[in-house]
Structure formats: C-alpha cells, structure tokens
C-alpha cells in the first residue's frame, strides 16, 4: 500500500501543528466559535448531540495492521472503547474531547493517517471497491488512481471552496462494489480493445434529498488523462455550480439543469485546453504510484483445497461462513474474507478496541498486513489462503466477528441516526437492530438470499437508503419518528433509485412492514434463484403495496 513520502509527512505534520495552535487559541478565547468552526471541520471535528465527533479518513478504505492498532488505541485512550466504520469507508469516534483532538491527530500522523477533507466543501476521501487488488473479477487495481486523485486534491487551492462537498469513487471491475453511479464522479477502470487502461467517466450521481444516477459522459478516458479530465469537470462545476442554494449546489443539479450532452460538451471544451498541459500523467509517475499497490507475493497454497472441503463437512457454521463471507481471489488458493460488523442485533459498523486489535493481528498473520473498510460498513481481509480460513474463522468467532451474513438481510447499512447525529430526524440503529433480530435465523436468511436493507435517519442519506433494495428513511412527523419505505433501489452496476411505496410506518410497526415485504417476495418469486431485486424489477411495486396497505391504497 501507499507509504507517505517526505512531502506527505511534512504536509500532515504541519497541519497537525496548525490545528494544535488553533485549538489552543480557541480554548483560551483568543478566537471565536465562528472563526474556529470551519477550522475544526477542515480537520474532521464535528459537534454532535452528546459530544464532538472525529471523522478519520481511510483513503480508498485501505489500512494496515499498525494503523488499525492505532485506531484501537485512540478508541481506548481518548474515546469510549469503540469506533464506527462509515459508508464512506472512514471511521468516526463519537466521544473525543476537543482538547484531546490535537493529540489524536498527532497519533494518527505517526501512522500516516489524518482527518483532512473529511468535512467541508472540498473533494472528500476518494472511495474504492473494497476488494481492489484482490477480487478475481477485477481488470486492474483502481487504488493507484484513487491515490493520485488524493494527492492531487489534497489542499488544492482551486478546490477548497467548491459550491458543495464532492465525492469520487473508483472501481476496477465490471461488478460495481463501490456504488460509483451515486457519486459526484464515478470512475470505472477498464481496458479498451487495444488492451490499454482507461476509465468510463460518470458524473452527477448522488443521494441526499435529490437522488440522481450519474451520467456517463465518456466511455473511455486514457489513464494518462485522469487529472486533466477531472480538472476539466471540476472547473465547469466550480464556475457554474449553484452557490445560491445549498440544496441545489451539488454537481448532480448542474448536470441535470445543464443537460448531459451540453455538460459533456463544456467539459470537453475545457479539457481541450488542459489535456496537453502538465496535468497529463507521465507513464513513469503512473507506474511509480502503481508500484505501491503491487499485489503481495502469494505463494501457492494448493493444500488448502482438500482441507477446506473436509473441514466444511465437519463444521456447518464454518461452511456457511465460507459460503457467505469468502469470495474468490485472483489467486485460486486464496480467498477474500468479509468480516461482518453486523452481529445479530448489533450496531452496524461498530467495532471495539479489542476487536480492532484482533483484526489487526489476523491481517498481520494471514492477510499480508492488509485490511479494507467496505462502504457497507464491514471490514475485509483481502488475501487469505484457503488453508488458513479455518484459523481465521475461529479467531473471528471468539471476537463475535464471524457472523455469516455478508450480503444477506441482516447485513444492514445504517447511519448513526438520532442516537448521535445532530442532523438526524429519527433513529436508525435501533431499527436496524430490531430487523436483524427479527431475521436472526441463519436458515431464514439463506432462504431469503441476497437482500440489502439500508437505513438513513434523515434526508441526507448517509445510510444510502435510496439504493437499498429495501430502503428506510426516518423522518420526524408531529414530533414522532416515522419511517418511509422505498423499494427497488440498487447501488451496483445496475444502479436504480428506490421508489417510495406508500405512507410511512411508526417505529413499532416498521419491522413488521419489512417482514411483510419479504414474505410477499418469497411468495411471488419464480424460484429461489430469483433475488429480491430481480423479482421487484419483474413485478413492480403493486404486490408489495397491496400487502402493506391493502387493495384500497390504489385509489390513494
């Protein structure tokens, strides 16, 4: 993975020193809250309901065991013994003292981490397929390009005051695990007929109060043109994006209002001026960054095959975990392990300091020192030999981290919601917990198959409800929580935005409603192979509406 060079160390070190001074001046009353707030936000420090919250960037969701151990230590020494992994592949600490935050940032800097650009109207942490560099179906590792974008966008003066925040995601496989079509820019790394690497470029996707699917404005952008073309997009946005209305300031609104063809034309015109400039990436630079992400040297471990089959036979729990949480690796003797942070009835995305340390140990011993954070709020060990799976499984089991539910109905995404968040209107986590408990049976989950439930506690959609197969949006109505249900959303290569199915449900009724939807699906699917989303796309919302509200709802 990428290692800081002298410039990076210097840059992050300087920022920590500046921030330490800013906090000291704030605490002594030398600067006002109005002056200080943007400064703390630039360093990932928010104020939430109970305390400050620190959001730490995990670039493209990749970290090593040293970094994970440091996150655990911060959770223990400065927080309340846990952290929350987010849908942006970051981690948040919920209880830090403002006076401790400079020391925390110092601790992070020591392990090449920071919280820069995790807030504000700038280019945020670039997210990536969490299986990058490991998945069998990948064309090429997209992370070197994410790293190039990170370096280019960090502290870039031209992008420090964008109309609104800006999120970029990259994937290197046909199967989109990074939800690129609901990002401001989505980059799909692929090869052209000549075998050269380049990107399909999507622009103007996003969730929030106006969900939109990104438009593909270029089918193949040569890799060397990544920065010049991205700069062209940013310039069109920076110039024309709306600054008069916060709710219309994202690039999706600009693309929508300008029209896809005209927007693409403006980008191409801007790009014409830039493509021969110093922004063109020299091949040597591309290769130098790519070298940081060279795949680990994986020895053949063919002995794993026979042993794995035998052990699966002996242990049904292990067999179902392998089936559900281990996916194919480029190297046939290896697997990609998803560590579920969704124990039955647990808090989606939360991990204790002890769990983080256990995962760091496993990464070091069995996964070439690499860990990933997925946007689905799970962790990943990307390079585990099949021969080691059983040892990893048992170690995870001890830490309550071996729930075999990746991609199933209890693998729920949920934002922090009203239990923590100052923006939220309703709680998310307790709803996720109740649904998880209702569908706790492993057998029942298997029978239901692939089904993504995503829950947001407000319209900002941090819980990605718009792209949940079943999405839940918590709102406040007459002082009480109410949950609106959307159906048919999807955040993959066939992205769709879920449609509201009808009137919302009170907290005590929402789990029943989800169960009604699931039972309706089970009753109408053509076979066990027809997944929820496929069935929904075949039959549409009516059978679900009828099951939820009765036939009379049609007139409403």
């Amino acid at each position, binding site marked *: 993975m990428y290692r800081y060079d002298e410039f990076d160390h210097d840059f992050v070190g300087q920022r920590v020193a500046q921030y330490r001074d800013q906090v000291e001046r704030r605490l002594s009353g030398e600067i006002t809250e109005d002056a200080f707030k943007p400064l703390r936000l630039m360093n990932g420090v928010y104020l939430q309901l109970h305390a400050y919250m620190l959001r730490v960037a995990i670039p493209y969701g990749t970290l090593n065991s040293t970094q994970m151990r440091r996150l655990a230590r911060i959770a223990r020494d400065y927080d309340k013994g846990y952290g929350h992994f987010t849908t942006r592949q970051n981690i948040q600490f919920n209880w830090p003292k403002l006076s401790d935050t400079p020391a925390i940032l110092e601790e992070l800097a020591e392990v090449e981490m920071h919280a820069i650009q995790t807030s504000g109207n700038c280019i945020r942490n670039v997210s990536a397929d969490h299986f990058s560099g490991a998945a069998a179906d990948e064309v090429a590792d997209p992370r070197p390009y994410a790293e190039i974008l990170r370096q280019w966008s960090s502290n870039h003066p031209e992008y420090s005051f964008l109309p609104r925040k800006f999120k970029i995601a990259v994937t290197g496989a046909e199967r989109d695990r990074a939800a690129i079509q609901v990002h401001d820019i989505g980059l799909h790394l692929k090869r052209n007929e000549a075998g050269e690497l380049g990107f399909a470029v999507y622009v103007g996707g996003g969730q929030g109060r106006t969900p939109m699917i990104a438009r593909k404005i270029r089918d193949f952008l040569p890799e060397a043109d990544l920065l010049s073309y991205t700069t062209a997009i940013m310039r069109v946005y920076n110039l024309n994006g709306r600054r008069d209305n916060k709710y219309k300031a994202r690039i999706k609104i600009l693309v929508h209002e300008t029209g896809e063809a005209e927007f693409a034309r403006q980008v191409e015109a801007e790009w014409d001026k830039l493509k021969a400039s110093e922004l063109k990436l020299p091949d040597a630079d591309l290769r130098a960054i790519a070298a940081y992400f060279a795949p680990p040297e994986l020895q053949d471990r063919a002995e794993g095959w026979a042993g794995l089959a035998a052990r699966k036979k002996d242990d049904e729990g292990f067999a179902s975990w392998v089936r559900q949480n281990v996916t194919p690796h480029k190297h046939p003797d290896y697997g990609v392990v998803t560590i579920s942070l969704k124990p039955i009835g647990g808090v989606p995305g939360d991990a204790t300091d002890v769990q983080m340390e256990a995962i760091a140990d496993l990464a070091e011993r069995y996964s070439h020192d690499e860990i990933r954070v997925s946007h689905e709020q799970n962790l990943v060990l990307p390079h585990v030999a099949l021969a080691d799976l059983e040892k990893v499984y048992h170690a995870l089991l001890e830490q309550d981290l071996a729930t075999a539910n990746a991609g199933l109905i209890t693998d729920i995404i949920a934002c922090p919601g009203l239990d923590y968040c100052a923006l939220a209107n309703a709680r998310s986590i307790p709803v996720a917990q109740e649904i998880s408990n209702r569908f706790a049976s492993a057998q029942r989950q298997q029978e239901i198959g692939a089904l993504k439930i995503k829950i947001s506690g407000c319209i900002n959609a941090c819980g990605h409800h718009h792209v949940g197969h079943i999405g839940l949006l918590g709102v406040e109505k007459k*002082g009480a929580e109410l949950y609106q249900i959307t159906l048919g959303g999807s955040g993959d290569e066939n992205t769709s935005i879920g449609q509201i199915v009808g009137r919302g449900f009170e907290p005590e009724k929402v789990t029943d409603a989800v169960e009604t939807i699931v039972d309706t699906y089970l009753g109408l699917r053509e076979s066990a192979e027809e997944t929820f989303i496929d069935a929904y796309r075949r039959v549409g919302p009516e059978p679900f509406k009828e099951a939820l509200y009765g036939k009379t709802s049609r007139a409403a």
Partner: protein
Amino acid sequence: MMKVLTANRLTDGIAVWLGANGRWLERIDHALIARHREAVDALEQAGQSAFHDNLIVDVAVIDVDEVDGEIYPIRLRERIRAKGPTFRTDLGKQAEFQQASAA
C-alpha cells in the same frame, strides 16, 4: 410554556443545561425552567453571554414538560441528549448518573 437552556461545553462537547444556580450542569434534572416570556428572554441572554465567554457552543432554548416532578424534553432529540444513545445504556448521562430521569 416551559423551557430550559441547553448547549454543549466548549472543551469537551458534553451536553449541559443551565441550572438555577447559574452554573452549567451535566444533567438536565436541576435545569432552570423558564415559565414566561421574560424568563425565556433571560435564558437566551444567559446563553449569549456564556457563548461569548467561550464556555459553551450550540446553545438553544428547548421546550420541556414536567412529568411526575421531573423535566421531560418534548423532542426525542433532546431526550436522547439528556440520556445518551437509546441502544447503549452504558453510555452517556444515563450511565454516568444512575438516576438520570429525563426520558
């Protein structure tokens, strides 16, 4: 009309309420209740003043009720601030002050 004044403490962000003794309290139980317009104005003024003195941030006057002699914030958001996360009773005021009684 019943209102209390709440904020988060500057140094650590912890939720606090203005008490009858003029101090910022870590629990809502003994918050000063304003029962008429003038008293609310006084609360707002006290909030402004503490904000300018760099003691607190995010200051707000919130609606409360009295239930069995205890202060009960009208909005769920404020009840959660007064107790802690609803699914983790080992955290927040509800854990720190066993008799926290806001929700």
